[in-house]
């Protein structure tokens, strides 16, 4: 039993390595990484994202651990600008920007240009 507790405490003393999370920005909406590889299904004949189809993948909240990195993939044909209290990411079309969230707590981030794009990030 003692051995087990020792092993557990030994394991706990190593923090889990920081993880990467991928958030996509499509049709002026935050969507989950489930859309990866499915872009063509969400587009119309002219290569524009169809809002109704994008909505099915809408992401409103993500939970991450302190120290994790969130990669923001701007797959839209418009510029986005995700910002929070302590950061500001100018995102050109088809660009990826990342941000490490060190502090625990819940925050809401938005696109400054498209304020309807909101995402709650819960950092545990």
């Amino acid at each position, binding site marked *: 039993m003692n051995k087990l507790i020792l092993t557990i405490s030994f394991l706990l003393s190593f923090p889990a390595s920081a993880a990467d999370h991928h958030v996509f920005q499509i049709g002026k909406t935050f969507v989950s990484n489930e859309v990866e590889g499915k872009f063509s299904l969400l587009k119309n004949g002219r290569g524009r994202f169809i809002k109704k189809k994008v909505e099915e993948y809408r992401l409103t909240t993500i939970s991450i651990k302190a120290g994790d990195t969130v990669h923001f993939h701007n797959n839209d044909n418009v510029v986005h600008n995700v910002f929070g209290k302590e950061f500001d990411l100018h995102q050109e*079309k088809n660009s990826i920007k990342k941000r490490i969230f060190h502090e625990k707590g819940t925050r809401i981030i938005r696109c400054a240009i*498209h304020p309807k794009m909101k995402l709650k990030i819960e950092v545990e």
Partner: protein
Amino acid sequence: MKIILLFSFALFSCRTHVDALDKVRVIQIELNSKGNEIAFEQDYIHIPLGKRVKLTFKNKADRDSEITHNVAIIKPGKESKVLELLEKEEYDFTEAINFFKDTDYLLASSKIIEPQQSGELVVTLDEPGRYTFICLMPGHGNILHMKGIFFVKGLHANSFTTSEIKELKQEYKRNINIPFPKHNPFTKSKYKLGKKLFFDKRLSATGTISCATCHRPQLGLEDGKALSKGVTGKTLSRHTPTILNLAWSELFSWDGRSRSLEEQAKKPITDQLEMGLNETQFSKMIQSDQNYLRMFTKAFPGRPINIGLASHALATFERKLISTPSPFDEWIEGKEDAISSEAKRGFLLFNGKAHCSTCHSGWRFTDDSFHDIGIDSADIGRGKFLKKINSMQHAFKTPTLRNIALRSPYMHNGSKRTLKEVIDFYNRGGDKKRPSLSSEIFLLNLTSQEKRDLISFLKTLSSEVRIE
């Protein structure tokens, strides 16, 4: 296809001349790389059919950055083939000519262009279509997407397929399920109270101005003035925005200063320059009116009566201010003759060449976004609240285009008197080129017929503002 190819390296850059494009034979287009970024400054360039195009490309990377570029024009439909070649491990730009020599993928290609140097291509684009321009340096075009599209006129207004038009029309279907917030749900008594307050001049310090003084139903809920005056007689700094279809909106006023309609409704009433009413005056007015006392008690039983509560009623009333079906909506619903053929062409231009629907999207004709569109004014708009965000300086909220023909003058400062002035403004890519200028604003090269078509279309968005 007649192709004329010229190379020259010059240290000057040309300006793009777009005036009277229909009459000129040679069009000069200036295309730059974006500083030290691996990107072009423009993603789309519109070109009329059959013109000779003189393209000057300037590599704007710093002299010591060692970032070199190239610009090539790909024939319509051959982009994927070119990208395939670029993906090959042994691809090397200095050998590019060998890679492409057995293909007919490229229309023209420049040599390597060093930082701060320019290159020039002259081509004749005599088939309508999309021509990709791309940097063939390894990784630039294929991995980092350093490419863009020449839309050669004829494509946009005329080449939407029937199924594409059908799909497009779906995006503009009215959806009038009004969302009311949980903290302020709809009740009839709140609506009635809000309506009474909206038209009541006693809501201003002088008893001369009601909400409806500036938001007049017959003028699309605006007042027809470039700038209005408040109770002090002083001219206000921004044009009265419409309050039509705000139930679905996010962040209110030109600069997004209010997070809810409740918060927004309160501000003009208490603002010193607008209606200038304080709580004491408000309370006195309500207490002396039995009607109001009864209505407040019915709408908000047991709640203390103040301006905040009044704005909850006003917000409830405002959420019901929805545009009624216009000729455009009838067309969307399938009545083919509801709008003219000019207007139909205008609708396609709106979604294509004129690039309007990037922001003015959906049945409300807005995505509630904030942009610096290049209005020549010192007002920093949204930048007042987001000081550090470059793109928010001089940025204002995208207004709905419903009833736009009734809502002149236009823009946050009322500086454009007519729709023609507005279209001309967008056509020349705005007036003030600042670092904050939105990347959605660029030269459109619209012909005078196309401008008229757009205006015809915009006029189909007018309908009566009905207040129940």
